């Protein structure tokens, strides 16, 4: 009983919010628009269930998720050390800033054409695009995190006898964790945009391809299944990030 009450207090408003979203949608599509071009959630969920059962939905979902994950992990693994180095060492920042400041203004969606020309329509071009989307945000946030470290943290380490390398590993890196996670969270959101755009243009599977096929064959409910899946997937991964940021934020904070 107490558990139920606690669950209600934590997730009650959430559940209510989601329920109202779908309720409004249902009402709007039945009474306001009432068109085949705007199916109600009941129809969409029924279709989603069907597509989940016969494996089509999971196949597309897995394809998109695999690309996002591969590119996102690679982009973060590259971005974190580059950002740390740029934030810590002025010459490195001077040297690399032209790259980051130039490339980050070219949207990854604009790079789709180049990616397809270079890497074809297979996995490589998608992973390249997600890496491209991820890396600059992670670099910028990580570097910003390094410069937000309280100078006294560095000074204390120096007068306790730490070398520059030790300060980098034992002070700069842990103090920057919340910034790194925030950068990754933003990058993840962008990855969703990029992967859908890339799959719309050139792919054999994935949620973006599902959208495209839906348009091509006028399968409006399939379009909506893809949209809802994207929304839920994004929501879930973002919650995961927020949760990990909260868990770390208590201990890992650059200022205090």
């Amino acid at each position: 009983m107490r558990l139920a009450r606690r669950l209600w207090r934590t997730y009650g408003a959430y559940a209510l919010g989601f329920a109202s979203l779908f309720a409004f949608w249902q009402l709007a599509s039945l009474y306001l628009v009432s068109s085949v071009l705007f199916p109600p959630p009941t129809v969409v969920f029924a279709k989603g269930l069907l597509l989940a059962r016969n494996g089509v939905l999971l196949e597309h979902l897995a394809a998109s998720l695999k690309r996002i994950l591969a590119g996102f992990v690679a982009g973060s693994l590259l971005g974190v050390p580059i950002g740390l180095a740029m934030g810590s060492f002025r010459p490195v920042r001077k040297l690399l800033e032209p790259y980051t400041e130039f490339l980050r203004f070219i949207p990854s969606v604009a790079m789709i054409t180049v990616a397809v020309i270079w890497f074809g329509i297979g996995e490589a071009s998608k992973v390249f695009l997600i890496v491209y989307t991820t890396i600059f945000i992670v670099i910028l946030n990580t570097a910003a995190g390094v410069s937000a470290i309280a100078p006294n943290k560095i000074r204390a380490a120096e007068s306790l006898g730490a070398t520059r390398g030790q300060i980098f590993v034992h002070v700069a890196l842990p103090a920057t964790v919340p910034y790194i996670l925030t950068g990754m969270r933003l990058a993840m959101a962008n990855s969703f945009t990029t992967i859908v755009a890339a799959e719309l243009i050139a792919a054999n599977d994935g949620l973006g391809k599902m959208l495209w096929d839906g348009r091509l064959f006028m399968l409006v409910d399939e379009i909506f299944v893809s949209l809802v899946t994207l929304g839920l997937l994004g929501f879930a991964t973002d919650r995961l990030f927020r949760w990990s940021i909260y868990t770390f934020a208590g201990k890992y904070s650059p200022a205090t």
Partner: protein
Amino acid sequence: MPLVSFRDVQKTYRSLQGADYPALEHFSLDIEVGEFFCLLGPSGCGKTTVLKMLAGFEHPTAGQILMEGRPVAGASRDRGVVFQGDDSLYGWLTAVENVEFGLRMRRVPKAERSERAMRYLELVGLRGQEQKYPAELSGGMKQRIQIARVLANEPKMLLMDEPFAALDAQTRTLMQAELASIWQAARTTVLFITHDIDEAVTLGRRIGVMRAGPCSQVKGVVDVSLDGARSRTDDTFLRYYKLVYEMIRDEVAKSLSRAD
């Protein structure tokens, strides 16, 4: 030979507008081995600048700072620093891990360093709190971690930059008494920066009174010959308080009129 000597030190800061501000000029001071030296001065007189230069965080514009006869070049574990605020603590490490930090950087074996860290945590009265993170501890406890962290590293000298200024009055009095007894036991050389006359007379064996800036110097040094535990109601204590107060009164007035 004094442990530390400032010889004709000058420190000039340049503002963003390009104007030069001479914080210290012809600043000279000797600190002897094993003494508790309080540097007292009105706000903005450059006392923290003195500490930062001795710590090696900043460099003098002219003049020399010698430690054991050698010029100070950058921070070193010879001079442990206790900062005013709590932003020098590592929030991702527990109290005991913070205290072990210097030893870990020197690759002292784990068993030895945790034994030493626990000893100093006990000394500063933090036994039982060792597994807590700084965010879970009060302001006074966080300053205790800083003190233990510096002591565990066994520096030749302690530099303390108004370490109790941010604490409430009761905690501050308590911390002063504890620091006094820690110093009685350890007899490490201390340079203690403060703007509080009461604190200086309570803790200092010698008190250096600084002039108001710019071009600040040591106006005079008072030898405090009070032994053991000092009482604020003691006649001798009050006499020293009065002596120091007279010295600093004009300087405070000057620094206030310049600030207007």
